[in-house]
């Protein structure tokens, strides 16, 4: 087999591979900080005191992977079916299906809770175009 213009092609390929893999070796050795959402807001600590453990509306593992779908279903339930209370399948406690008055009541640390993972995963949910995010005072101090 003969490769015409072999030298040019191989140099071209090497340049291409170099550029394509640039992001990988550029980041070699750099510590890729894992997102660590914080669940230590006053409301959550209060909850822990009262019930002896931290718990969300559903188990942590479920919330990690499926919260977006749950929130989507909550929205339809509230806006379209007028059902505003959610009964947890895990703890059988009742929760207010509301982003501003439910979720963010406990998770009042949007920057350290929502944004931590969303930024890492480069997802940009547009919740906050309309919904008012909690004011975070402690952020300005640090």
């Amino acid at each position: 087999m003969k490769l015409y213009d072999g030298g040019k092609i191989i140099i071209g390929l090497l340049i291409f591979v170099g550029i394509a893999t640039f992001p990988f070796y550029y980041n070699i050795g750099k510590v890729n900080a894992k997102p660590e959402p914080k669940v230590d807001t006053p409301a959550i600590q209060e909850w822990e005191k009262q019930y002896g453990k931290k718990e969300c509306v559903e188990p942590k593992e479920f919330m990690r992977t499926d919260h977006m779908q749950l929130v989507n279903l909550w929205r339809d339930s509230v806006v379209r079916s007028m059902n505003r209370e959610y009964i947890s399948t895990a703890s059988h406690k009742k929760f207010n299906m509301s982003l501003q008055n439910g979720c963010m009541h406990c998770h009042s640390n949007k920057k350290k809770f929502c944004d931590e993972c969303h930024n890492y995963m480069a997802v940009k949910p547009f919740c906050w175009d309309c919904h008012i995010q909690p004011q975070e005072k402690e952020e300005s101090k640090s």
Partner: protein
Amino acid sequence: MSMDRRQFLKIAGISSILGLGASVANATHPIWVKGLDPSQVEPNKDALNAKKWAMVVDMSKFKTDEDFKKTIKACHLTHNVPDFRNPDGTVNKKFEVKWIWQTSYERAFPGQENRYMEEHLKDMPFLVLCNHCENPPCVRVCPTKATFKLPNGITMQDMHRCIGCRFCMAACPYGARSFNWIDPRKAVNPETENKEYPTRTIGVVEKCTFCTERLQSGKMPACVEAAPKGGLTFGDVEDPNSEVRKIVTTKLTIRRKPELGTGPQIYYLIGGGDHA
């Protein structure tokens, strides 16, 4: 390796089946497939319920400009309605968003005015809002079902679904709908905003929702609470014992453009206390 067309199609078919299979396997959590189980949700216990919510506006109770202003302000502050102003402080009519507002008799009740009408009636501002029609044209034209009827008679608006096509604005004979031409956050004061209620985003249509969220937590609509005593009466028009029904049955009330067949549910008492 050489491949004929038949082999290529076989491989392509098998790989697409595998790909589809993987994506289905990925979404097998019950919640992705079935949605919420009805046993998982319930309405708020304190919620106020009705077969058909309706409102009576007694114009005789609105005496001063202040009475109108505080009623409108209560609504607009509760729902974070943007207040677009011109540099000189007047209302920016181009971007104005309104849920409840004042208009003249002629505009509220076109065709019912006459030349010899009482001056006072002619010039009196009328309080108008979404009529929560029985047969709402806005719902009929909405291509995404973003606006729809709730079982309690409220014409609801789902801001999440609205694509901003503005068909509903063209369809509504009452001008009850406003479009967000620019980001409404620019004209919502963070000092006075209601932290328990969202704002809207650019490109959606909004209107009065009869305070659905307040009714569902057992509260009367914000305008009803803020209006002068007896000015706005809110209740279930299907319930023979409700205040609203009693007024509508015993007194002469008029509605806006009933001839269009939309079945508006805002009833106006006009003559005033002295005559009615």
